[in-house]
Each structure stands twice: as structure tokens, then as C-alpha cells.
């Protein structure tokens, strides 16, 4: 596996036949974008998992810092009124 050290890592997103959006399914190594698509096809769609593939080099993804989770996500915890269920719907409004 020594070669894989020099091949960049790619993240793979697959849209299933009835899916509306691409979902992250995993990652793989490839020397360029074309090879990444082919590798994704061979590794992640062998059992008819999808009909569309996106790949993006992992280094192009900026992720949130897990150490900042308290500051980033906790403030939302006590603001339940942001959920639409908080509101009472008038009777005339149907199909919600």
C-alpha cells in the first residue's frame, strides 16, 4: 500500500436511484479526479447503490472544530421555539 501515500484522499458522495441528494458514503485514494470517480464507481456502486457520483478532494473540505462544539452548537439547545412545532396552527390551515 506504499503508493497510496502519494495519492491524495477523496471524499465520495452518491445519489441513489430515488434519492434527492448526494450522501457522503466514504473516502478513497486516487491520483486525480477521473480516477477518483472510477474508483468510487468500483468501490461504492457495486451493489447498485447509486446513479450519480460526486468526488471532492478531502483537503478542499473545511470542517468545524470539534473543540468549539460548545460554542457552536449548545446555544441552540434552549431555543425550542425555533422548531415550527412551537406554533399553534389555525384550523383553516391544512396539510401541514
Amino acid at each position, binding site marked *: 500500500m506504499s503508493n*497510496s501515500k502519494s495519492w491524495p484522499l477523496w471524499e465520495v458522495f452518491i445519489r441513489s436511484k430515488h434519492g434527492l441528494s448526494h450522501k457522503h458514503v466514504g473516502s478513497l485514494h486516487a491520483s486525480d479526479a477521473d480516477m477518483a470517480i472510477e474508483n468510487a464507481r*468500483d468501490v461504492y456502486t457495486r451493489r447498485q447503490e447509486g446513479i450519480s457520483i460526486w468526488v471532492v478532494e478531502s483537503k478542499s473540505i473545511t470542517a468545524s472544530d470539534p473543540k468549539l462544539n460548545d460554542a457552536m452548537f449548545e446555544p441552540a439547545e434552549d431555543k425550542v421555539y425555533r422548531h415550527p412545532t412551537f406554533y399553534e396552527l389555525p384550523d383553516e390551515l391544512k396539510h401541514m
Partner: protein
Amino acid sequence: METTKIKYLLHLADNGLILAQRLGEWCGHGPVLEQDIALTNIALDVLGQARYFYQYVAELDGNGQTEDHFAYFRDEREFKNLLLVEQPNGDWAYTLMRQFFYDNYMQLVYSSLLTCKDTQIAAIAAKALKEVNYHLKFSSEWVIRLGDGTEESHKRIQQAANDLWEFTGEFFKPASYETELFNEGLTPDSQKLKSAWETRLGEVFAEATLEIPANTWFQSGGKTGVHSEYLGLILTDLQSIQRAYPGSIW
């Protein structure tokens, strides 16, 4: 009895079976995990193609044999595969050059068989062509990547082309059963295949900065059962279980 059609179908089936066996040897040994899977995927595709042809042979043969009989209980001299597909894997460059020579050829064969008067052959060709289109894309890209890569990769893929070249002449030298079927309008014109094969090879080699080997002496015999020393060893592996325990199933 082996009719000319059965002989031709066995030729196509044996190509797939033996190449699948060779590609299967890479399983667990690929240079990286992703390419290991890619190669075994191709192996399974060509094995699937072989099975369709063996099944059709079993049907035409009418002696109540199954596809397994033709894969496991024929001897070396009865196999009609191309010499190319039984050649050892060598390094990655060898395997991919062998694959490119073969894919380039089979893509043209299946394309012409789409309009075969025998509708069963045409249907198998239609299914196989989708797979081979992908194989050809895959192997062409590797030939280009290695040829136009580093000094070392260029040297190795050029060496593979030089060494395997003598097994490509057989593609376009029809066996007597092919000539007969061609006269009946069932099989492709080998000279048309040859020029299309050379054109595409020229394009890929140009992009890969590879030289097309100049030697014009070619091996032949595989199509009529005269094989290199390698086929017997492949069959020993491939057939051992069924020969030792006939009819055994998983």
C-alpha cells in the same frame, strides 16, 4: 458434436474464463485497495460474459450438459481462447497492457455482433458491450497514465507492449470456424476489425508517448487449441475441485 457456431462460442467463452482467472490472481495483491477492487470487478464482468456463452453452448449442444461441463471438463487442447489472455500477469503494466489490447479488440467484436443474425449472440453482445466500454476506458487511461508518467513507468509499459505484441496478431487471423461463420454473415470481418483496432491503438499510444512495436511476426494457435505452456497450469488450478469431486457445489 462441435458445430462451427459452438466452436466460435467456446472461443468467446474461453477468452472470458481464462482472462477472469488471470485477473483473479490479483485479488488481494493490487497496488492499492481501490485498484484491486477495480480489477476483480473486471474479472467478474468477463466471467459473466463467459457464462452466457457457455450457457448458450450447453443449450445448442443438447446433450443435457450445463455451463460447468464446458468450463471444468474440457482439456487444454479443447480450449479455444486467445494466447494473449493466458499470458502471466507480470507487473501492473503488463496486466493493464494485456487488458488494453484485449478490451480494444473485444469492444470492436461486440460492437459488430450487435447486428448478428443470431439474436442470442446479439443480446449477449449488447450486455457485454456496456461492460467492455468501461473496461476499455479504464485500461486506456492506465496505459496513458503509465506511458506519460515517470521514466520508470514509461519503461515498464513500453516493455509490456513490446513483449505482448506478438500475441495480438492472432486477433485478426481467423480460425476456420470464424471464416465459415463470416461467410454465413454471422461474425465480423477481421480486416475491418484490424484497421479499427490499429487506429484506436495509435491514438492511445500517441497520448501515452509509447512506440507501437514494429515486429510483424505473430504467435497463433490459441483459437484452435494450440496453447502456450501457461494454459495447462491455469486449468490445473481452475478445474482441480471439479475434477477431484465431480458435480460438487458450494
